[in-house]
């Protein structure tokens, strides 16, 4: 079909045009890590009284004795073969670490985004239907609170209220109750794996662990989504075709949901892509507060211990995900707006 071909062509073009950017990200993070203060060889030496010889040996093992351009070339060759190096802290290949930890971050981000959308869209629509009314002001206040309270504060408040005082939330450690059986790993998303395995106890346990960090994240991104929905709805509601719908006697429901909302969602889609990428990278604080075994906290730990390979791998992963999210948004946009696929 023509539409599929046109979308595939657009997607292909996007991927190709993002390759130089990815390459730039690789080189930039490599150089950045090299200019940061701290010598990993000293850090990973056996102890404070390790001899110069031992440090030299570690340095040689890590390839740090070679000139920087040569290190870069070696690094690029490794990336080409899918090898992101080995983490000095965990002793595992970085790829293995990222693969095991990425689903945790993705699951958290997806659920949080979903929650945020479920809240933000109706709030935005309500606010747009009655601008400057009481409800509009309430939505505005919720959004303001959402952006101005940092996630580590709201996260701790949630833990304080729901775990410490009310006792209805489980203790904020990890993705699943340690006494509940871990479902067999298929996708790495615990909710999906547990559902596939039919292990509903594990599912409930995972969901209970997830809900507080997800709410924390959702609150943080509620504002851009709700405000964008409101602004875009306001603009669409005054447009000519909404007036046409009214003039020809369509029901209010149909005018608002089919005529106005679908058009208003187009800019929200773009914002969603940006919000998603931001969440994935920025949820390091949430991961720390809730001891969530995600990629962001992994990268932070690596950075603090001058462990080059995981940080570089993490940045490359984020850049790739960012490209892919943009691509998805692009394709969705092409499907949602028939004017785009024309070009």
């Amino acid at each position, binding site marked *: 079909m023509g539409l599929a071909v046109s979308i595939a062509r657009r997607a292909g073009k996007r991927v190709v045009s993002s390759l130089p950017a990815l390459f730039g990200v690789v080189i930039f993070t490599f150089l950045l890590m090299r200019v940061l203060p701290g010598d990993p060889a000293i850090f990973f030496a056996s102890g404070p009284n390790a001899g110069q010889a031992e440090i030299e040996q570690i340095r040689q093992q890590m390839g740090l004795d070679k000139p920087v351009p040569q290190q870069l070339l070696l690094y690029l060759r490794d990336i080409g073969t899918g090898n992101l190096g080995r983490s000095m802290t965990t002793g595992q290949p970085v790829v293995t670490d990222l693969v095991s930890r990425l689903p945790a971050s993705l699951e958290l981000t997806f659920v949080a985004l979903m929650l945020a959308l479920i809240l933000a869209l109706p709030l935005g629509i309500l606010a747009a239907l009655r601008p400057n009314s009481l409800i509009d002001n309430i939505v505005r206040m919720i959004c303001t609170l959402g952006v101005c309270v940092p996630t580590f504060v709201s996260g701790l408040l949630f833990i304080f209220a729901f775990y410490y005082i009310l006792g209805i939330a489980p203790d904020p450690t990890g993705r699943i109750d340690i006494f509940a059986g871990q479902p067999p790993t298929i996708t790495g998303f615990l909710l999906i794996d547990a559902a596939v395995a039919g292990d509903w106890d594990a599912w409930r346990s995972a969901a209970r662990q997830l809900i507080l960090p997800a709410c924390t994240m959702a609150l943080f991104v509620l504002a851009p989504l709700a405000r964008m929905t409101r602004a875009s709805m306001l603009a669409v509601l005054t447009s000519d075709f909404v*007036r046409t719908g009214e003039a020809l006697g369509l029901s209010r429901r149909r005018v608002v949901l*089919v005529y106005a909302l679908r058009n208003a969602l187009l800019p929200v889609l773009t914002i969603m892509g940006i919000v998603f990428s931001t969440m994935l990278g920025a949820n390091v604080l949430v991961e720390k507060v809730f001891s969530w075994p995600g990629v962001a906290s992994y990268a932070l730990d690596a950075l603090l211990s001058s462990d080059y390979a995981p940080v570089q791998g993490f940045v490359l992963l984020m850049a790739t995900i960012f490209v892919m999210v943009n691509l998805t948004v692009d394709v969705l946009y092409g499907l949602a707006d028939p004017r785009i696929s024309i070009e």
Partner: protein
Amino acid sequence: MTAPLLTIEDLKVTFSTRNGPVEAIKGVSLSLSAGERLGIVGESGSGKSVTAFSVMQLLDRAGKITGGRITFRGQDITNASRGMLQPLRGAAMSMIFQNPRAALNPIRTVGLQIADVLRAHESLSAKEARARALKLLEAVMIRDPEARLDAYPHELSGGMCQRVMIAMAIACEPTLLIADEPTTGLDVTTQKTVMDLLAEITARRGMAMILITHDLGLAAQYCQRVAVMEKGLVVEEAVPATLFGAPTHPYTRRLVAASPTRHSTVESLVVDREAAPPAPARIAPRPGSEPLLAVRNCVKVFDNGFRGVDDVSFSLAPGESLGLVGESGSGKSTLSRIVCRLIDASEGTITFDGEDIGGIPSRDFYRSRFRRDIQIVFQDHGDSLNPRFSAFDAIADPLRLLGGVQDGRELRRQVEDCARRVGLPEEFLDRFPHQLSGGQKARVGIARAIAAKPRLLVLDEPTAALDVSVQAVILHLLDRLRRETGLAYLFVSHDLNVVRMMCERTIVLQKGRIVEEGPSGPLFTAPSSDYARELIAAIPHFDPEAALARQKALATAV
């Protein structure tokens, strides 16, 4: 006589604005019987659209009906609730709008949009609704209706979108159709087909229609009765022949005079002209003199392979005025931009004053010494002025850049001189575009163009966005300027009557090619090409005799 279908009694509408409440409608009374066609004419701000929107209760949040009564089929709908109106809208009274493409949902196929209307008022399955939508598209005579059902509005031309809009409006056989400037922005030939279609459909289905327009000719041609509105009041109401043949109200008289017809001249357009000294006679172009501008075999091919201008040649003598007419897509704007050296031609030569200027790339042309000789006046006077520039800055800019005037006092003097020549009072010079009216913005645009003392002025639809009375004044001004300074004009317009008045010679373009060229007088009275004939025949006119004849024909037909 049965009770009228719609009566409006002493309607008052107030808008709350930043500067307090503004009364847009100050007591309008109108009535319409079933099957009747009423025209409401007036200029922008006269309240004609607001009246229609009040009937449909489509006023935006700021507007409120503050007095009067609207009765539809004996039912008071003045401040009807949504629940009461919704079954009426679309089913009993419908509306079609200006700018049909924007009036359709851009991300929904037209078939579904028509089905939406049908299903809002009747219980139909999706399949039945689609079949009915197809029938409706056939009724509005869209070519290949089956395929169009799944088209999106952006895939259709403006005229086709308006047909779809008409199909939606008549879907549930309403008894009243309100058409708000339905053909503004469409080409004359498209306007004619759309209006003929509307007239035919309303007559066949016995629908009453209110036609809101600024075009007196259109109202005269298609309506049985016309009401003239000015500043929120109906000032005169009569059958077209009387109204336009013997207008009684001074405003109607001014409006009728200002509307260009096939007989009017620039002088006859303005009734209460500012007491200007008699303009000097036009400087007749000396025969045999070197042409000021010569375009030879000009071709413009766009990136997608479309030939916007296809082998066009013409020349323009100093002080001559040449009209360029054609429908949208005929290449007239592209050609005017090529002559202005804003875009490059793909092939061909352009000589100005004997020197080749086509060879200078358009991006470097600002450095050429000919830049000051060729200036342009744009169609949209609001958008073509920098909103952060006062009128003074706008006029001073070309003086500084092209005229090399740097001295503040000298600059002030020259700007004031330009302003005086275009009739812009000095106190307006410090205002910003949003503080100026449409006519004043047009004057600033013209003053800016003549500031650098050009020899050729390209006028790209300079009056298309203006009300007729303002248009009359601006045309008058342009004509006077030409007499005074001996400027040459390349006058681009879709309004054939305007071109006939303003230009000695006219070129008719179609699909990028010249189909006819010659002195304006003979070209308009006896066109030789079919296309020119079609264009001229499509102009709505309101000669009293013609209107009378039409009415008789209609009376016998119904």
